[in-house]
């Protein structure tokens, strides 16, 4: 069947033909081959803010002030101007339309951080169903802090960290959740995962996973805290038993030698941190134990297996700490465990890491994998989009290109696999991206690998700063006629005069409009160069 790339022909075809079952979004997306952000306004004059992201429904542009204390929210609109000439297309845009304000209307500016706090500029989560945004402010982190109160050595210390829940429509702060003397890794949404209305916050310092629920009324409600305790009533149970155990201990006090009598009062309550491993650790160790136990039927082989695989590594298992967490569904968490040195060091690849699937309702560990496990990699390859935590409310999340839903992404993955030096190295490298960070990929159809080919080192769906080049980044059609459709160039039009200073670029694509911002920054706090790419 002859299929035309002409947009008018495509519109007529849309009127006549029903797409094949399950492909309606893919068919609709083909129009993005015709409507491209090919026009660029270079170095547009705009407020000197840090532009962070378009919300995933395209309603708001989030930005922070330079001093990291205010939040400024814009509404993306479109420019409008009238042309009295006959042939308007040949004319360039009037100069007064080439402004930031033609495309964005400021809605409000809200101060989130008080004097000694700053907004964590790399952190932002959006709850699409209610148009709520989650931001974080914190006091300055103290890098080397003593490990008091059961904290992990080497993890930085933040005196006060606040999570703010904001209604983005009008900028009203609905609720706040404060963490004191703690540390949550907020760069690129690493330590927090949002799934529907559930929020999982990983406290690295105190080794707990806090689950909160965002109610429709705008309240942040504590659901549970997993770490020391698994069930909600574990602490109550242990405390009530602790009081019973304290009574016989007091009778022993007079028999203790003199130098211990002063410490005796402290020992009358059994020290919970010393005598018990944390709840989640107990679940993990017993799961590993039972797994090794069940491998053999013969009793002596069982004991041998346990000695070799469990008791030999016992201290290493006990010393594991929670690194990162994501939701797999409302009841299941994927938890990454690793060593303390791995958290602190920059290069975590050489440190051992493990993955556990934990059911929050039954408080059971369901599965446990090493980071070189082939079977976990196979699940990752076949069901990548399920790891992205696609909740029911956001349809577009299923269409972000991943190896499980896009043949080109799968080919790229296979290519890397064939070039890799060893299977276990390759699996470790791929699994190091698990658990996924929430909302770090842009749903823009221009990043759909079935539509466009582009250099993934220079630009991709993941919103991270990248090295900026003077050459424009080309977007080439995947399908016939394989032509270059548009280019995105960051920085000034003529290229920059200073070739030596390192420049980084950030690309913000609107989720569904042919509109993108490219922001080029040098590393010395000079004002950034903002370009607007749009379809004329």
């Amino acid at each position: 069947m002859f299929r035309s790339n002409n947009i008018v022909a495509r519109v007529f075809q849309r009127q006549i033909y029903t797409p094949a079952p399950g492909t309606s979004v893919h068919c609709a997306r083909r129009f993005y081959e015709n409507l491209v952000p090919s026009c660029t306004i270079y170095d547009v004059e705009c407020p000197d803010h840090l532009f962070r992201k378009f919300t995933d429904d395209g309603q708001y542009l989030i930005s922070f002030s330079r001093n990291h204390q205010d939040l400024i929210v814009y509404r993306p609109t479109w420019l409008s101007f009238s042309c009295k000439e006959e042939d308007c297309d040949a004319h360039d845009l009037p100069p007064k339309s080439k402004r930031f304000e033609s495309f964005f209307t400021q809605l409000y500016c809200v101060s989130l951080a008080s004097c000694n706090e700053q907004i964590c500029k790399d952190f932002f989560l959006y709850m699409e169903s209610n148009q709520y945004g989650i931001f974080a402010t914190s006091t300055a982190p103290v890098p080397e802090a003593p490990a008091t109160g059961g904290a992990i050595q080497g993890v930085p210390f933040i005196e006060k960290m606040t999570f703010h829940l904001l209604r983005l429509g009008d900028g009203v702060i609905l609720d706040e959740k404060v963490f004191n003397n703690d540390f949550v890794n907020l760069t690129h949404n690493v330590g927090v995962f949002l799934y529907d209305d559930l929020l999982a916050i990983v406290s690295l310092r105190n080794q707990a996973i806090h689950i909160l629920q965002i109610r429709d009324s705008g309240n942040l409600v504590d659901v549970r805290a997993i770490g020391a305790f698994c069930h909600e009533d574990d602490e109550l149970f242990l405390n009530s038993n602790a009081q019973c155990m304290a009574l016989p201990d007091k009778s022993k006090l007079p028999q203790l030698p003199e130098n211990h009598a002063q410490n005796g009062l402290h020992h009358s309550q059994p020290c919970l941190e010393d005598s018990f491993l944390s709840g989640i650790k107990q679940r993990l160790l017993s799961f590993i134990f039972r797994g090794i136990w069940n491998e053999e039927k013969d009793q002596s082989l069982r004991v041998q297996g346990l000695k070799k695989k469990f008791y030999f590594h016992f201290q290493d298992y006990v010393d594991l700490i929670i690194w990162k967490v994501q939701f797999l569904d409302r009841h299941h968490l994927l938890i990454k465990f690793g060593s303390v040195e791995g958290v602190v060091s920059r290069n975590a690849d050489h440190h051992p890491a493990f993955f556990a699937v934990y059911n929050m309702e039954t408080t059971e560990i369901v599965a446990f994998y090493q980071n070189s496990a082939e079977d976990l990699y196979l699940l990752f390859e076949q069901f990548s989009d399920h790891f992205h935590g696609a909740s029911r409310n956001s349809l577009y999340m299923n269409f972000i290109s991943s190896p499980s839903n896009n043949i080109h992404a799968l080919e790229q993955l296979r290519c890397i696999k064939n070039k890799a030096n060893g299977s276990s190295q390759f699996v470790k490298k791929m699994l190091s991206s698990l658990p996924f960070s929430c909302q770090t990929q842009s749903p823009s159809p221009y990043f759909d690998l079935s539509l466009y080919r582009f250099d993934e080192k220079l630009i991709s769906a993941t919103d991270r700063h990248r090295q900026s080049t003077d050459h424009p980044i080309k977007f080439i059609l995947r399908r016939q006629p394989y032509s270059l459709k548009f280019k995105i160039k960051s920085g000034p039009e003529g290229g920059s005069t200073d070739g030596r200073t390192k420049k980084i670029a950030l690309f913000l694509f609107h989720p569904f409009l042919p509109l993108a911002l490219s922001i080029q920054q040098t590393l010395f706090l000079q004002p950034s160069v903002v370009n607007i790419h749009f379809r004329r």
Partner: protein
Amino acid sequence: MGSMLGDWPSFDPHNFSQLRPSDPSCPSRMTPATYHPTHGRTLPPPDQVITTEAKNILLRHVYQRTEEKDVLRPKRAPSELLTPEHGCKQPRASPL
């Protein structure tokens, strides 16, 4: 409760009268519970209930694997443990 489709003529007015949540984890979304076969050659068992599996496919595979390991068996190669869901489907990739 009257029929969901209102007063439109229907083959059997009781067809869409029973509403049940189709997904246990999202109870507000109701769908009609009736399944009526269009012919009498293959009748479903009278107590059959068709529901959507609450666990997504990833978790289903994770649980399946754990259940297989729990049964007292010597270790098998991973490709054998990836049992296909239906007889017609084959595991797509084999480990290196």
